């Protein structure tokens, strides 16, 4: 079913891009414990990505690596949030907080999908995302309610990432159709729960919900971010240098 496969690409590409971004932190984190923690989260996301891309690939007779390494930028389906640069640690935590809140709501519902494979991956991912959310929330508190500088940086991180929140909850025809069939979760249906989950964390961290408008475009279409091509350039370079090689 190509529709289900495309949906798996939506979710898998998100996880892959985020894993790639987080992977860059390893050996550069503010504490050695964070090298470990960020590597953990990166591996979880990469794990989701591998599972979802492999599943998507069954529809087109492609492997996870075919899909990860041999699609060009316009063919990816990720949202712009996960493609945003790491920036400083505050910016990364802002991205993590938003995405973990979103994935928490998504996977808790997707584990009831009528598609058994998606239900299984969501159930597994949900347990991991609980940790990601805890990690992001703890750091949001520490940074927001830490020093003046950390408060400013964390607030700026949220400001930078917030334009890409709305895209997480945009529906399209494919999603509407799959959710009617009980396979996908309709993104718009998650927004309220997301807001209720993230707002108290931001408030407790003495931070403010950013007053910034949603960035036009996105919606998993050809209107992706300028960053995507840079991410893929690095990720795909070696695989493409030796097409057909095994590793």
């Amino acid at each position, binding site marked *: 079913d190509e529709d289900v496969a495309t949906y798996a690409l939506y979710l898998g590409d998100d996880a892959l891009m985020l894993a790639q971004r987080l992977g860059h932190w390893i050996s550069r984190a503010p504490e050695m414990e964070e090298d470990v923690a960020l590597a953990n989260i990166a591996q979880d996301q990469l794990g989701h990505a*591998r599972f979802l891309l492999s599943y998507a690939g069954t529809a087109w007779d492609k492997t996870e690596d075919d899909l990860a390494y041999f699609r060009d930028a316009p063919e990816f389906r990720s949202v712009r949030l996960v493609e945003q640069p790491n920036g400083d640690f505050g910016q990364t935590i802002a991205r993590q907080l938003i995405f973990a809140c979103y994935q928490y709501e998504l996977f808790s519902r997707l584990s009831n999908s009528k598609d058994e494979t998606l239900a299984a991956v969501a159930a597994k991912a949900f347990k991991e995302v609980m940790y990601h959310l805890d990690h992001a929330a703890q750091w949001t508190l520490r940074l927001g309610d830490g020093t003046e500088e950390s408060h400013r940086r964390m607030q700026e991180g949220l400001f930078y990432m917030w334009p890409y929140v709305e895209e997480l909850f945009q529906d399209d025809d494919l999603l509407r159709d799959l959710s009617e069939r009980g396979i996908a979760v309709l993104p718009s249906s998650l927004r309220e729960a997301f807001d209720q989950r993230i707002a108290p964390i931001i408030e407790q961290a003495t931070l403010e919900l950013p007053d910034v408008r949603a960035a036009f475009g996105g919606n998993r279409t050809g209107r992706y971010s300028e960053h995507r091509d840079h991410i893929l350039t690095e990720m795909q*370079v070696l*695989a493409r240098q030796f097409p057909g090689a095994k590793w």
Partner: protein
Amino acid sequence: RAGQERFDQIIAEDSRIEPRDWMPEGYRKTLVRQISQHAHSEIIGMQPEANWITRAPSLKRKMILMAKVQDEAGHGLYLYSAAETLGTSRDKMVQDLLDGKAKYSSIFNYPTLTWADVGAIGWLVDGAAIQNQVPLCRASYAPYGRAMVRVCKEESFHQRQGWEILYELSNGTPEQKAMAQDAVNRFYGPALQMFGPPDDDSPNSKQSMAWNIKRHSNDELRQRFVDMIVPQAEALGLTLPDPDLKWNEERGHYDFGELDWDEFMSVIKGNGPCNVQRLQHRREAHENGAWVREAAAAYAEKQARRNQDAADRHLIGA
């Protein structure tokens, strides 16, 4: 006096020293130096491999590589903890590293130029590390030995994964095989040097062996390592870059050629290809993270104060 006797007895019995036990200053200093160097090596050693995380050529390899570099961070943390039981703080040890006062294994001052280098590091560098580390699981200082047990378990995975990377390359396209051979050519000598200078030039070894920290001499360990990797290289179909390497029936060991000890000493003294780069990478991570660590400390303090205030209010019935 009683402490010294007790210490000597523990060593003589090949038992274990615990942090609460009395120990000679030289023993303590030697251990702090050795364990912290080992911890620094894990932390600096993340860089050459992390250099390929974003470019790993398959998702499976990317996953394995992330896990491996993560393990190195973990090993660094165990080892700093073990060293801290000897009374030196992790902050102090890390500061010595950042100030260029502390040493780390000089192999990490070589660059990873291709993907095959990730394989060569796994196979040769982790292989040599294991050879060094397995006997350290029985080191007389108990916390060190315990840390090494955990480290060794994971290292043997790493060596196997490195070997597998090279195996795939060696059995891949001609370009892949050439890449693997080139990596082995560059890492073989430095890997053999990881055991330290020849025994004649290794003045500290004797004392370490007397204290049951070290169990085998540098040259013994090096020989074992060579004996181990020669058949592995054959299984890989790769050549070790040493024309003098050959089986010595009489000794029951492989003979091998003289290593370039001038290069070794010069890399140790600071002119490896990447010494400055590695330290700057570490310093940058540390400096860029300063505001985060300060925030965490400030937040912890606020929380402690809030808890105290709550307890006080409870006490006065407010």
